[in-house]
């Protein structure tokens, strides 16, 4: 298991515990934790509704792919810390990371 923190649209921060050996994406964990993440495209890096900011722990995530960067780049609002949660694999590298929800609200 790995534990990281998630900040919602209202600024509330909560620790989330997730299994790090099931090949889950951060988007799937956020949805399962009932955060308002639309994830319309189902994790194909096509809709950017799972846009998050990585406030801490960016080093452990690896580089964003071209497809992901293309999506992020197209967003009206993008930060140096922006990622798509569907492209972040849950692994022990996420221990202690902090994510802030950015995608469109439901």
């Amino acid at each position, binding site marked *: 298991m790995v534990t990281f923190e998630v900040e919602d649209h209202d600024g509330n921060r909560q620790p989330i515990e997730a299994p790090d050996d099931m090949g889950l994406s951060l988007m799937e964990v956020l949805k399962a934790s009932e955060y308002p993440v*639309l994830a*319309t*495209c*189902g994790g*194909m890096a*096509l*809709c*950017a*509704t799972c846009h998050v900011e990585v406030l801490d722990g960016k080093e452990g995530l690896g580089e964003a792919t*071209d497809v992901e*960067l*293309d*999506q992020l*780049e*197209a*967003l*009206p*609002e*993008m930060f140096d810390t922006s990622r798509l949660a569907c492209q972040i694999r849950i692994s022990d590298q996420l221990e202690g990371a902090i994510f802030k929800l950015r995608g*469109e609200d*439901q």
Partner: protein
Amino acid sequence: MITTDICIIGAGPVGLFTVFEAGLLKMRCHLIDALPQVGGQLSEIYPQKPIYDIPGYPEVKAQELVDNLMKQIEPFNPTFSLGERVDFLAKQDDGSFVLTTSDKTKVHAQVIVIAGGLGCFEPRKPVLENLENFEGKGITYMVKDPEQFRDKKVILAGGGDSALDWTIYLSQIAEKVTLVHRNETFRGAPDSAAKVFDLANNGKIDLILSSNLTKLSGNGHLQSVSMKNKAKEESTIETDYLIPLFGLSPKLGPIADWGLNIDKNAIEVDTTDYSTNVERIYAVGDINTYENKLKLILCGFHESAIMCHSAFKYVYPDQKLSFKYTTVNGVNSF
């Protein structure tokens, strides 16, 4: 007015296959899609990506699947309204419907099938105060008729291919073109990016990098756009038009206003026939939701077969439906 038995909203793989299943039961179909081509997200977003879970195809490219589906439904002569979005739905006294599209096309149908996938791909909008007030009054998210911009001042915002391409194109006809981009570099096609830098160096366009839009001003019609650079310095540019090009994002669109039961951007259906809570309206494929729903093309195919058998009673109220195999009966075109 176009008259048909079934009007299918969405020409993705499941919408296309619905034509086949309907055709076997002698029901004619008209398809409407907001995108200018058939295939839905398969053609629009990942035409060259392989799909591995279509029965009978160990691997098939998305566009190849769409092409094959088009061939498969050819005998049933479906008709299409592409690049149009269904905006209104009016129930008639006899239970049938008249749909009106964004281009004012009218379609009369006995049954409506919503196969809208992720929804309509609509332009992403920047978060700016008063944005709505200037939509259609200086702000447009799409270049439909470039002549509109002849001898006008135009600001484009964005860094993708469409921002680059339209900047290049409009630089030849507009009085003044300004491209505002958040970064220093462009991720679009390198050739187009090089050309945009050339145009800027030669004074043909104004290129404003590392800047974000901050404010819109105008009296009824857009008059100026303000932006801030990384050093937080604000500047304001007078303009006739602003074209924000921040890509497309799937939205449920007008479907949300048709009185259908909606749960998290998906339409609730009865799994015995994939009907919605409104009689004669069905929903199949990724746009519907039910317990244990899987958003798979193959599940959508299954749903459209069941759905067509249920819809038969509205198209042929006096006939009894008999189930037939294509192997026994072949595919009888019309």
